[in-house]
């Protein structure tokens, strides 16, 4: 099957109940795809953020798509807190697996290497450990009385992210966003939206190939110009801070959030 598809077709790999891994804002968030998933009504996701998230986790949680959320943080930085995430945690409507950034990196890199676990210094003495019975402390076999945390590998069913370019073979150029390599390697399938299609072979030029994820990791690519909006895309556009501030204010209530969905998700945004 051709790897370049319409957005909804590309997203068919993300079934209800999927373990879905997504990157942080700086790495390229597939927001147009996220809105399409909400329109489709996906349910029961186990959402893993590498390592933190803002509007993507917030909208998916608010729209009831998420059963379990594994994250180091969800928020809008200096712009404010994430209201629907906060409300869901306070109401106990999602299962929250609180993590710390390098733990999610380590667990995904473990999957990338085919290992059953990753290791990580630190954490000991943090109350995070009490909330994560799936994290285990062992005595470093190369030390003496030297406790260290092991984290079970995270193998997502699907990785979903937004990148700048793909070619028609399904090779995807991600530039410096090297975490996306790990996401694609660790996940069984990867679905990618891109700003533009490249008319040639991204692997043909050594300089471009060096930052290109080969097509054999990629299951589907959909064209989505400005597909990270209202989040940023490095070198192309910044985040739409006013939109996010307006969102944060609106989503303070359930109805306000419903109005936001109506306006920006269910009624497709005019370009």
């Amino acid at each position, binding site marked *: 099957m051709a790897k370049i598809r319409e957005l909804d077709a590309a997203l068919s790999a993300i079934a209800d109940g999927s373990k879905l891994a997504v990157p942080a804002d700086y790495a390229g968030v597939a927001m147009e795809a996220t809105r399409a998933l909400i329109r489709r009504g996906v349910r029961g996701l186990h959402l893993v953020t590498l390592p933190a998230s803002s509007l993507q986790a917030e909208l998916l949680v608010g729209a009831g798509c998420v059963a379990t959320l594994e994250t180091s943080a969800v928020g809008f930085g200096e712009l404010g807190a994430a209201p629907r995430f906060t409300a869901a945690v306070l109401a106990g409507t999602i299962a929250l697996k609180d993590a710390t950034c*390098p733990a999610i990196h380590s667990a995904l890199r473990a999957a990338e290497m085919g290992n059953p676990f990753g290791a990580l210094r630190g954490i000991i003495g*943090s109350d995070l450990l009490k909330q994560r019975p799936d994290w285990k402390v062992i005595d470093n076999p190369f030390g003496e009385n030297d406790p260290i945390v092991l984290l079970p590998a995270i193998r997502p069913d699907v990785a979903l992210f937004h990148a700048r370019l793909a070619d028609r073979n399904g090779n995807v150029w991600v530039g*410096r*966003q090297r*975490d996306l390599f*790990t996401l694609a390697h660790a996940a069984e399938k990867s679905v990618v939206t891109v700003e533009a299609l490249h008319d040639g072979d991204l692997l043909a030029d050594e300089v471009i190939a060096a930052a290109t994820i080969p097509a054999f990791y990629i299951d589907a690519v959909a064209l989505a110009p400005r597909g990270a909006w*209202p989040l940023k895309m*490095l070198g192309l556009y910044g985040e739409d*801070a*006013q939109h996010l501030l307006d969102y944060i204010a609106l989503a303070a209530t359930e109805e306000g959030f419903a109005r936001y969905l109506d306006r920006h998700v269910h009624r497709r945004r005019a370009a």
Partner: protein
Amino acid sequence: MSAVEADIKPEEVLIDVVLRLIAGARHVAVGANSPIPAAAAFLAQLLSPEAPNVSLQQSPEHNLWTDGGRELFDSAGQGRIDAFFFSGAQIDGSGNINLNVIGDHTHPKARFAGAYGSAYLYFMVPRIILFRLEHSRRTLVERVDFISAPGTSPPNVFRRGGPVALVTPLCHFSFDKSRARFRLESVHPGHSVEEVLDSTGFAFDLPAGVPATPAPPPETLALLRSRVAPRLAAIYPKFAEKVFGIPMPAGAVPMG
């Protein structure tokens, strides 16, 4: 308070304190939502002879990383990051920070974004500088409700770093890791030791004759306002608008 000092914003005093705390660092990394540390780090690049590397975790435009977001954590693990910054919904007198919840974790009364990299970087970076823009008994507490990252560790736990200071709009504390206790180093212009004692929920060492925090030198202020502020505005528009009066840019795409 002189006329010039009256013109100095509290954030500018804090930036200058942080600037002195990162003196001599080779590589200063700045995490999410940290405009004051970012300002100090940009200033250090302009002012200090070492011209430290500065990496802003969440802004690939403003960092040296080329191996993904993980590179901050990797290079901290390698011992290449000298200074980093954390805040906390709560910070307690033993240097523990809470970025997660108020109340019980299972049934919290309040929820914050999350621990980010604190539970790792707090152990791995030699000079962690804490900052908290609300100095109150609500934020600076005897004991945090949830330890996102502990201030100190037992001797057998691998640890090469931790908190060295806490900076607030009122004062500058240093942290003594052997005693897991803060010490008041200086009180900012316009504030008093009594105000610090009234507003702090944890016990701390109080030396006789706590000095006033020096005002930022005029050349520091000038550089901050002329050259650093525009860089900050691109990353922290809300902060730059509030402190430096730089208007927030209109959204890239209008609300539809």
